[in-house]
């Protein structure tokens, strides 16, 4: 919200407001000043001139040569406009002035010297369009600065008003706040708010639901003179980012900015009768609003209606039919109070927010309605010399707007950590217009109507004391020692360690949005897998890309490698640890599964002066898997079970299992998907359910004696059919190897000339040991022979000669 310092000054009994100081005290009391804008800076070197004489330009039909008196001297100015006459007061931009970001210089226009520029309203930023130059009032002093002469010698503060302070959504509210902060008087016009209230019944106001409309005040203005808004009024609106329109509308806006009470003016002659009804809209009832849009309402919305139809959406925007026009003679001025949450709901539903709705949403003070009408009358009187003594209609439900709160002085110290003197607390509250008295270390406070919504409890008053006293004056004290145990849980520590381990192995951690498009799931055929069905849908996505919560990290990692390949980074190992989502039964929160996704593509080893180039393959990915499994499941068996997923290569696709618990999937991305994604290099993907993986870790580490007796290593090379799996051979060797066999390690696979086609040679190193004695070669020989015999039987394996 923007306010101007001069405007604020009208309500303060202070002589001079130092802009930087005001900005600082406001910011440090909770009303953040985002920007301080010195308007006169914008009009530097623009002064008032008097048009002495003018004649046509010798070489142009459109231009005139003007002689302008600026007090100290007379200037020759070439001008393109025609709307002036001798003795007119004009705004002259001298060389060095900036007009619409262009610096004015002395130059020649078609051979004639021009020593400045006479400005139009548009060029001065005072309207969006203008015909000819701006002609100023003859009261303007020649040679004076333009900004001073037209009331633009002002400073605009851009404020952030927190939602709890609807009373600050106005110039008066800010002035009241400043008065408490700097100790100046708050000066308001004193109107007798009971005078002329409901003195006749020529006009009727009917409120159907006082909960939605606690108060509706209105007044008729007959035969309003058709004049333009004075410049000072327009200027203030412009400085506060409100576009001037016509006198009536400008005044409603002015009073709203000043008092915080939104006003709406209807063209009385366009109303059906002398009655206003505040009611809920009928289902599907529609209205054309002043922005020329058709608004379709439902029965949640509140409307202002005459006896024929809705003429405004309450608190949000008026209707086109009753809009004030150039021909308006009679006006019905509405000054009402509507229930905030209802306005908020409707404004959200129809997607329309206005200055008025923004104020109503925050629950403004219903005591303001009549005051605002009186202020409007007052200003109309000043501007248009229009006097009125007619009735103010006021319909309301009586509500309690005064609240008594007891504030314990000791509690203030307890909450803030510093004892504050009762007298000082009392003064702070008094400055905030909260009347109070001290009684036995308790301050009995009475909250005024304009703070009724915000200040409800003792703690609310403590906040008031704290913010006015100043947070910077409070101490900084360590948290008292208590039962503290700062540490990561086992789960958190494991995640952190795995993340670190993966980075140490050369992987880069990515973080992607949790959203995914249905299109993307389809593209990777994820939607066809039972595993990933039951997706969680967003009701109000930003766009199609953000429609679902992702059930897998795969598409995101694919996108990451594609994006990076496009940047010519082609050798990539990435991982992400994030939640994936799955629908739960209705009404329940979805399942959230913390998931590790990992993808490898490109080269594992770059060609180097001492290294051979090598691409990532399945076993790189499985190696990483082995590593993290061994770390947390030192004795657990890791198994890849073949299972086909449509996004994986049909032969390189499986589930990851630890001790018969399925914890994830692993495989090579299907070449067709690779092709469709236009990646042109193989990619390998693995996904682990971190919740399952970590929650099943058993902390069973126990010291085992370091073997005291030597072990025997035997190398065994067998020839088997190509189809035989290493895992099966290993299992058979384990079974036949007795408990003396401690380790098996595959160290070579050979296919080639030395053995038959379709066969392979598998070479294993077996390690035998007994913890109680030294083994004899002969007994190992017997075991190895038995192993060979069994391998022969089972796999038709024979020893490689």
């Amino acid at each position: 919200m923007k306010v101007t310092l001069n405007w604020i000054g009208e309500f303060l009994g202070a002589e001079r407001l130092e802009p930087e100081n005001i900005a600082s005290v406001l910011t440090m009391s909770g009303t953040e000043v985002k920007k301080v804008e010195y308007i006169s800076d914008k009009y530097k070197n623009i002064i008032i001139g008097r048009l002495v004489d003018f004649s046509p330009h010798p070489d142009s039909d459109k231009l005139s040569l003007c002689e302008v008196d600026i007090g100290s001297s007379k200037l020759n100015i070439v001008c393109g406009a025609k709307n002036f006459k001798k003795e007119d007061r004009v705004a002259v931009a001298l060389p060095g002035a900036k007009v619409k970001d262009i610096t004015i210089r002395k130059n020649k226009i078609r051979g004639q010297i021009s020593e400045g520029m006479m400005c139009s309203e548009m060029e001065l930023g005072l309207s969006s369009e203008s015909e000819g130059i701006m002609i100023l009032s003859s009261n303007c002093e020649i040679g004076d600065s333009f900004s001073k002469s037209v009331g633009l010698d002002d400073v605009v503060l851009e404020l952030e008003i927190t939602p709890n302070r609807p009373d600050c959504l106005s110039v008066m509210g800010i002035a009241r706040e400043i008065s408490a902060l700097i100790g100046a008087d708050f000066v308001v016009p004193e109107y007798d708010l009971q005078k002329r209230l409901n003195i006749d019944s020529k006009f009727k106001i009917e409120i159907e639901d006082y909960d939605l409309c606690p108060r509706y005040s209105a007044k008729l203005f007959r035969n309003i003179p058709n004049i333009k808004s004075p410049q000072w009024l327009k200027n203030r609106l412009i400085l506060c980012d409100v576009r001037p329109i016509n006198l009536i509308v400008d005044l409603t806006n002015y009073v709203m900015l000043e008092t915080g009470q939104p006003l709406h003016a209807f063209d009385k002659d366009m109303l059906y009768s002398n009655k206003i009804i505040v009611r809920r809209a009928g289902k599907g009832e529609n209205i054309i609003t002043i922005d020329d849009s058709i608004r379709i309402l439902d029965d949640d919305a509140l409307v202002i209606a005459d006896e024929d139809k809705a003429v405004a959406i309450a608190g949000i925007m008026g209707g086109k039919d009753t809009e004030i026009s150039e021909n308006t003679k009679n006006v019905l001025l509405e000054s009402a109070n509507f229930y905030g949450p209802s306005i908020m709901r409707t404004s959200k539903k129809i997607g329309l927010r206005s200055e008025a709705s923004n104020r109503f949403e925050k629950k403004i003070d219903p005591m303001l309605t009549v005051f605002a009408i009186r202020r409007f009358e007052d200003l109309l009187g000043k501007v248009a010399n229009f006097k009125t003594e007619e009735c103010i209609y006021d319909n309301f439900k009586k509500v309690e707007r005064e609240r008594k709160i007891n504030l314990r002085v000791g509690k203030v110290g307890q909450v803030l950590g510093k004892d504050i003197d009762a007298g000082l607390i009392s003064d702070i509250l008094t400055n905030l217009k909260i009347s109070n008295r001290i009684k036995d270390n308790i301050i009995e406070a009475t909250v005024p109507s304009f703070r009724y919504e915000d200040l409800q409890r003792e703690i609310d008053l403590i906040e008031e004391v704290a913010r006015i006293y100043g947070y910077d004056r409070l101490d900084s004290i360590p948290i008292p020692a208590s039962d503290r145990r700062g540490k990561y849980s086992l789960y958190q520590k494991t995640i952190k360690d795995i993340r670190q381990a993966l980075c140490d192995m050369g992987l880069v951690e990515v973080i992607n949005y949790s959203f995914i498009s249905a299109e993307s799931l389809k593209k990777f055929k994820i939607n066809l897998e039972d595993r990933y069905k039951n997706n969680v849908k967003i009701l109000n996505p930003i766009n199609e890309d953000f429609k679902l919560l992702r059930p897998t990290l795969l598409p995101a990692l694919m996108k990451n490698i594609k994006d990076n390949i496009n940047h010519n980074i082609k050798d990539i190992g990435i991982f992400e640890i994030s939640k994936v989502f799955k629908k739960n039964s209705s009404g329940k929160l979805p399942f959230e599964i913390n998931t590790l996704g990992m993808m490898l593509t490109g080269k594992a080893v770059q060609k180097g002066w001492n290294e051979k180039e090598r691409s990532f393959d399945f076993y790189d990915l499985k190696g990483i898997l082995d590593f993290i499994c061994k770390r947390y499941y030192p004795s657990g068996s890791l198994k890849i079970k073949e299972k086909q997923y449509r996004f994986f290569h049909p032969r390189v696709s499986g589930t990851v299992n630890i001790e018969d618990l399925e914890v994830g999937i692993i495989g090579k991305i299907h070449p067709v998907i690779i092709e469709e994604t236009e990646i042109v290099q193989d990619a390998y993907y693995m996904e682990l359910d971190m919740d399952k993986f970590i929650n099943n870790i058993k902390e069973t580490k126990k010291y085992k004696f370091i073997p005291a007796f030597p072990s025997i290593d035997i190398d065994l090379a067998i020839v088997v059919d190509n189809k035989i799996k290493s895992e099966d051979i290993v299992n058979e060797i384990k079974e036949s190897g007795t408990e003396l066999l401690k380790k098996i390690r595959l160290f070579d696979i050979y296919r080639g000339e030395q053995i038959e086609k379709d066969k392979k040679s598998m070479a294993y190193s077996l390690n035998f040991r007994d913890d109680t004695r030294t083994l004899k070669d002969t007994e190992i020989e017997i075991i190895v022979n038995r192993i060979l015999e069994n391998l022969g039987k089972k796999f038709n394996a024979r020893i490689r000669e």
Partner: protein
Amino acid sequence: MQRSEIEKQEASILFRDKPYKIMSKKEKNISGLEKKIKIELDNFTRELETVKNLIELDNLRTKYIGKKSFLIKTLKNIGNLPDDIKPIAGKKSNTVRKKIESDILIKEKIFKNIEYENKLRKEIIDMSLPGRSTAAGRKNIISQVVEEIEEIFIGMGFEIAEGPEVETDYYNFEALNTPSGHPARSLHDTFFISENILLRTHTSPVQIRYMESHKPPLLIIVPGKVYRRDYDVSHTPMFTQIEGLVVDKCINFSNLKWTLETFVHEIFGKDRKVRFRPHYFPFTEPSAEVDVSCNICGGKGCRVCSGSGWLEILGAGMVDPNLYSFVGYNPEEVSGFAFGMGIERICMLKYGINDLRLFFENDLRFISQF
């Protein structure tokens, strides 16, 4: 006998002036033998000086303590000597033999070292060549900063709590003093899953969940992803927050100030100033926004801090007593404070990153910088 005394005795035997005759015709007495052994030793010592390499040294070894050398032969024949001089002769020869052996060993070590040195000097490698490559992994900048913050708070005795990213309206708004129709709701543009289920717009719901299941004292921080329906240059629909909550018997605003000042000094440096400004949040009272002095301009005001000299980094406040009624605490018995911050913003300020979108584009050229 002490070793030094033995040595003394040996020396006296070797250099006894009066000859003691036995053994052969020529050298029948012990003094002759002594003389001969002394000559052997003298010869050896002289020749050892002239030895130039390991081969010559080996020859010397054969000559003086080889099988056919005088000394070894003497030792072999010692049994034939008369009993009275046998021990003296034996001792003497052995002492000299040992002395020769050790001299040779010392010399041998010297030669071997020289030989090694000469050999190794020829083994030239170019140490300027690149090392064998290990892939350069990298933790995401967000994880790095989250972990850094976690460690700071763990050091102060905090634990780490977590909560669901998809929340109920109750935990995300209602129990946080933001009932339906509350004006603060319009500040949070929310993604909905159903009427009452939504993507959490902040990590604050975990405050309620944690208090429901724990009794004070509690000190937690809550890192996590949060979601708002905003997508433009300065907003991403998902971002990261860290929430903090401390509840105990006598926690006050001054404790909040200390905690956050300590935190800011840890993460941004001790030279940075911290400012607490009144603000409004529905679930804290009194509330504050916390600014850190701008490091670009040193507080004078610049473009980064919009001329104010301060950078906003945290929201905080005393837990609104209403929240305690939602979780069954007695607001007259306990008090506490809460705070929250956006991690991406902290990252941007810490590392001078100027584009929020970089965080989720996962450009490896970006991630690898940190």
